[in-house]
């Protein structure tokens, strides 16, 4: 089977951005802050795959569970040491948001140090690198192509099940709605937040671990994706996980396919402006619909209900 490389790029990139956007939204819902370090977890996943593949000679897919657990544990550690501590001493939303920026800078530097250490120690080229040669082939297609898509779909299904069918999921939704009220009802907010940070950190790291199988990667690749992740999350509506699925896919597809199409239409110079695409999406959403597609959906729902009530009322009046 042969699929043009640009479509493979689009599907892989969009799938990974979608998972990252879902995680970003979930963190926002439970901790009420945008986590600017979210993309950097993906950067850690990138180097987990690199280390296992290039240094230890293992299959890149071995990194999937390792990246998930490592990312989740690291994210929990960050929550306990930084976010949780700042919350306890009364740090507000602004302090917490800025602290995530500091975490992002710290972690990016740590990845850079690790990459340099590997370079000096093993004489292996660590930045930029790509692991296409290490990927498996499935029916003539690179393994990451179906894997990324399956991973994205599985994440959506598992999250849906978790949020609707399990006690932890219900507690997470309650915390997202109103943390004070959830606390009064006996929900341990701290534990819920800790779990959600584990989940989002793990998913982000896992998404990152698949990235170098198709895309060029370096220590700043993960942190550099934060604009796209935020655009996807904001487009879907920051307070709706299902919106993030749609938002992530739109942003990912736009960056890949739209750039290629615009280059064909207007010329090669358009390609230089690819990083502007998520920026433009962010600006448009913030100006015209700050609550994203979720806001549009809610307004549509309200109108539908109002219309139904008007009809009901007029029917009742006619009946009377």
């Amino acid at each position, binding site marked *: 089977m042969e699929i043009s490389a640009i479509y493979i790029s689009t599907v892989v990139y969009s799938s990974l951005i979608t998972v990252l956007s879902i995680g970003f939204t979930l963190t926002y819902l439970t901790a009420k802050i945008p986590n600017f370090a979210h993309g950097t977890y993906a950067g850690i996943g990138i180097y987990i795959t690199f280390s296992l593949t290039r240094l230890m000679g293992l299959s890149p897919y071995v990194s999937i569970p390792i990246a998930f657990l490592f990312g989740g544990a690291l994210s929990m550690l960050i929550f306990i040491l930084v976010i949780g501590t700042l919350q306890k001493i009364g740090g507000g939303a602004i302090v917490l948001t800025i602290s995530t920026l500091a975490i992002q800078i710290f972690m990016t530097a740590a990845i850079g140090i690790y990459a340099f250490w590997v*370079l000096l120690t093993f004489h292996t080229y660590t930045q*930029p690198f790509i692991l296409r040669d290490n990927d498996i082939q499935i029916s003539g297609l690179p393994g990451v192509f179906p894997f990324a898509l399956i991973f994205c779909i599985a994440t959506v299904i598992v999250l849906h099940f978790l949020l609707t069918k399990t006690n932890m999921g219900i507690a997470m939704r309650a915390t997202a709605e109103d943390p004070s009220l959830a606390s009064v009802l006996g929900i341990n907010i701290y534990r819920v937040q800790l779990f959600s940070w584990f989940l989002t950190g793990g998913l982000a790291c896992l998404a990152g671990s698949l990235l170098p199988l198709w*895309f060029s990667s370096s220590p700043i690749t993960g942190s550099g994706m934060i604009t796209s992740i935020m655009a996807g999350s904001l487009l879907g509506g920051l307070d709706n996980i299902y919106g993030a699925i749609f938002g992530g896919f739109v942003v990912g597809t736009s960056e*890949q396919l739209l*750039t290629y199409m615009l280059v064909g239409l207007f010329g090669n110079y358009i*390609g230089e402006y*690819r990083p502007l695409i998520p920026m433009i999406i962010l600006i448009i959403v913030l100006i015209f619909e700050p609550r994203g597609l979720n806001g549009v959906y809610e307004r549509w729902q309200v109108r539908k209900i109002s219309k139904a009530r008007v009809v009901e009322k007029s029917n009742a009046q006619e009946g009377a």
Partner: protein
Amino acid sequence: MEQKSLTLVIVMLVVGLAIGGGLGYVMAPTKEVVKEVQVTVTKNPLKDATLKIGDIVASTAGLETEKPLIDKIMVPDLNEYVSALGFGMKVQILLDDAQSQPSIHLEKVQSFKSQGITQIMGGRWSSQAQGSISYMNENNMILVSSSSTSPLLKQKDNLFRICPTDLVQAPANAEMMKTWGIKGVIIFMRIDPWGEGLYQVIVPALQERGIELIDAIKYAPETTDFSSYLQKLEDDVKAGVAKYGDKKYVAVQIFSFDEQITFLTAAESYPTIKDIIWFSTESGGRDQRYINEIGEPLVAKRMFSSYMGVAETSWKFINLDRRFLAETAQTAGFYTGTTHDGLWLMVLSTLEAGSTDAKDVIPIFINVAANYFGATGWCDLDEFGDRKAQVFDIWGYYKDTDGTVKFRKYGEYDGRVIQVKWDDAALAAVGLQRPALG
């Protein structure tokens, strides 16, 4: 009568003496007044001095080879030489990293200046040299670059480049393509002073040789994902092949740095460009990293690179190459040689000037360079402080009989007479044959 005559003689004698004395007084040179002045001559102005040179690598990856080169080879060699001459000066080289950013390069330059360091080995990428040179001119600092080649920086300033500019290299690549029978080319390049400099020189060079520039795909240096660019390249190459009838008439010319390692690997996913002929500059040739990272796909792409020739047979280069290989497990390339030569020139100029201050070194640098034979040969610089045109080697990759990928010299380009000489025997030895030119 006799007495009268005697009186007249005496009078005339007196008058003559008076006139002669007067004239003699007026015409006599002024009397020199000898003044005693005490001049203190310092016997050895550099005694107990320390020459601190700031060394800024272009990207973090460069530290891998630069650190052992500096610590294990350059600093010991330079100090041994200075000490043997009895100068009593010490040479220190402080290493830093511009992290691929011109702005960070400038920050590092400013940081060195604040430490009193005015001699910098850096500006390895033209964009980084361009971003810092104004500041360095204003502050009497010297910037010696081992690898900046953009013609856009050809000015009389404090930048001295130990490598020739692209005014020599771009025609070399155009001539390589012409002699290989290429009819259409797509340029795939980064947008920075180096890439733009090469582009501006190669476009007329291609036109002169009747090679069509099918397209130029330019990407920002920060780009990490090349998917859409490679797809466009694939489309362009397909169109070129359709027009000229065969893949052998179409080529890709890349002006890229280390990012080409990833996009050359990624190009394997595109059916047309994966085995088209790629021409490259020095950053793609004769490099063990390319073999380690990309491997076999390099063979199908040929990757003919114009690579500034080193003084291969000179003891200086052989010695440097042997020691560099022992320290880094990589062979020394042209830019290893220019770094070596640049640092030597800074030290020799300092000794000649009797001062570690760059403002004393700058006026004599070109003269010192003209008389220096280094690992890369005679380091003659032009009036702008740039290395004069020399011979470029043509390198490419091939698969050896044992299955390993290796690099090999396939010919030469003489920048002085604008002529390419392919080594047909070397090509034939690896199963390559130069197409017959129609």
